[in-house]
């Protein structure tokens, strides 16, 4: 069980990082980005595709991250241009369509089989008793925490963060104050694309890495982000790590596979019902 839980920590790091991205996107871009991991998947697949014919791994990785960033930026541009005043549901609807397009395009360009990723990190970092902690696990947990801390510092300590918060909470007021909305919000999309592609590049070699499985990682990540109600970054990280460990622990128990599959769903339903327990009506008045 404990071995499983620690093995699940790698997934947990992925979930946590994506959850942080989802939280930041929800706060700054007013969107639940269903295509969050899909852009990372597409970028990572581009790297593998480039590395095949002999492009050096580091260069392929960098290009892949740029691809992910560009795709994320395009989705952001569409939303910022045509749906600037739309509600969260419609804006998020666009990301559902983007998720579909990205997975289909990856089928077309890269095939439907899992790809031969070359691991960036491999091997054990250290052992706790009899349990081996992989380098990937260590790196991902560090990345998750680092991204959360960096996001928090930018949001609370910098002028940029102040502008971003103003823009998301009072878009029209912010624009009237001279804050240029479109470049800023597209910038948020690009940065979240970079971070996501980076972690997907790290984790893909160790996961079941077909396009759908990777892209659907957005589901447990959303469950983690919900622990922080799409607002608290620290809880999003904790949620991601705990969910990953739970998943790893359940994977050890043969009879409970079904529970494992439904775990993110049950967590989502439970957390949402708790968070929204007071929301009896659709509007306050």
């Amino acid at each position: 069980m404990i071995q499983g839980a620690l093995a699940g920590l790698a997934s947990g790091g992925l979930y946590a990082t994506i959850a942080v991205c989802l939280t930041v996107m929800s706060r700054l871009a007013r969107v639940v980005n269903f295509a969050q991991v899909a852009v990372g998947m597409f970028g990572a697949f581009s790297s593998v595709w480039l590395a095949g014919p002999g492009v050096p791994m580091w260069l392929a990785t960098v290009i892949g991250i740029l691809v992910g960033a560009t795709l994320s930026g395009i989705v952001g541009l569409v939303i910022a241009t045509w749906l600037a005043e739309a509600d969260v549901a419609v804006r998020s609807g666009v990301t559902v369509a983007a998720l579909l397009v990205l997975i289909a395009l990856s089928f077309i360009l890269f095939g439907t089989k899992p790809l031969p990723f070359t691991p960036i990190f491999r091997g054990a970092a250290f052992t706790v008793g009899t349990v081996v902690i992989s380098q990937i696990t260590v790196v991902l947990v560090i990345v998750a925490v680092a991204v959360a801390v960096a996001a928090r510092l930018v949001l609370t300590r910098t002028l940029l963060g102040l502008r971003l918060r103003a823009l998301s909470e009072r878009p029209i007021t912010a624009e009237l104050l001279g804050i240029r909305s479109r470049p800023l919000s597209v910038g948020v999309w690009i940065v979240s694309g970079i971070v996501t592609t980076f972690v997907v590049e790290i984790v893909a070699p160790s996961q079941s890495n077909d396009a759908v499985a990777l892209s659907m990682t957005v589901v447990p990540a959303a469950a983690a982000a919900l622990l922080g109600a799409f607002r608290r970054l620290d809880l999003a990280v904790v949620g991601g790590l705990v969910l990953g460990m739970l998943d790893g622990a359940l994977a050890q128990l043969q009879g409970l596979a079904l529970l494992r599959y439904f775990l993110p769903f049950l967590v989502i339903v439970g957390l949402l019902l708790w968070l929204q327990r007071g929301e009896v009506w659709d509007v306050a008045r």
Partner: protein
Amino acid sequence: MSPADRRVSPTRYGVPLLVAVVGLAAGWGLSVGLPDYYVFLGTSVIVAAISLLGLGVVTGSAGMMALCQLSFAVIGAWVTSELNLVKAPGNGILWMVAGAIAAGIVGLLVGLPALRLRGVNLAVVTLGFAAAVGLAVNQYQFPGTAIGVQVFRPQPFFTDRSFFLLSVIVMVIAAVIVYALQVSRVGSGWRAVAFSERGTASAGASVRTTKLSAFAVSAALGGLSGGLVTLQVGFASASTFAPLQSLALYVLAIVNGSYLVDMAVFGGILWVAVPEILKRLGIPQDWSLVVFGVLGVQALTSRTNLGEIVRAAARRRSEVVVLEPAALDDEVPDPTPDAPVLIVQGLGVRFGNVAALDGVDLTLRAGEIIGLIGPNGAGKSTMIDALSGFLPGHTGTITLDGRDLARVSPARRARLGLRRTFQQDRVPPSLTVEAYVRFVARRRVPRPELIDLLSFLGCPAPGTRLAAVDVGTRRLVEVAAQLASRPRVLLLDEPAAGLSHEEHLALGERLARIPIRYGASVILIEHDLDLVRGVCRRILVLDFGKVLADGDRDAVLSDKAVLAAYMGETELL
């Protein structure tokens, strides 16, 4: 009758049934005439169309983001396969129906969170469900597939051609049922709940039942399509129902507006034809998903869909025909204060530390119209909210016809005859005037009565789409609809907002006749004192949540304290 009345003569069921018969005949013709290959494709079209029809109910009509339509198809396919494996009594058709029912029940369960969750939160839940079901199906497969047990089609639908005909019959039955629901009060409820839950409850419809019925119908249709495809192919396979396909169906439902039956069928054709054409051209079929996705983005950013575009083009330039207000020859008789209908004692509402209402007493008698006035923030709308059941945490008692209303839900209060209108626009624009009035009335309104009621308040003709009507007129339609329910008490929250001064006065003439014509007692919130003075003999003034004055209008309106609170110290009436 004006031409406008005749144009909307009730062919609600005649034309659709005719279309259904033509559809069946066309289905038979195609089953005989099409080449073999196209017959099989045709069945696939119908499987997709049934799924889309269901998706149209939950996402199109009821406005909920549901990304798990094919997870319900999995339930249908699983039940059909399992019943086939254990050689259950009956045949494939029966098993398919059982699968649809099972899927409907699962739909109810998945829909339960929808009672608290809306919009994007619901999308997260349903995508989570789709992902979980996808993984589970990949792991466990369908009953019998591992040992190669085939699901045989029932006689006499064994061949591809006859099975296509069966599919057409199934779809026509499903389409007729969905259409009948869409034009019934249930369907109006779906559209109402998509626009406003409070408005829905105030019409006496339970938000819970409305949402869950949409989920159940949608899921049952998903389950039906799952069973049908299992019989078509002979076994169920996980790839047919992959979560990705659910997303694609959802996007397609948005693109073409599959809450419209014809567009669901057209969507089914697109679903099959686009990949087929791509295949002929030697292009990878996955491009079809890209096409759907891009069209989906287009539909979302332009806020419309194919079905509405086609209908808008086909519709004649629709000018709104307002019914000529009927002449009022009757005098308003002096009301003879009758038995109390609504008794409010010690009503108090707190928002945190603020007392929005404090110890308000009020007795409304049968046939009475009370004007409820007071400065902004005095607690007028809060009082209406408390009376209509939206603030269950209030203190004090409210009794309607001697019945204590504590812990009675807003929908139940509406059904007991305590009705209200809203200051905000709560009239769903996707309905016609007639559909909205019938939905709110919750009783059979004979057509002459409907016309009479609408012309009494100067509303648009019954067939007018509410989307084409300005907000002020929508408020009048809202009042007319609530009156059609024959309420005991009607609470009107600024019904004249958005009307011109002349229209104010005309409305006043009519409001004053509500008790005598429709038997309802009225509490009227209004800022226009001319209107209040003309309509109400009795006025209750609220200030900072307390009753400042209550009594005869002339006495109240000349009361010093009222003048000070309402008009400011220096101004005089």
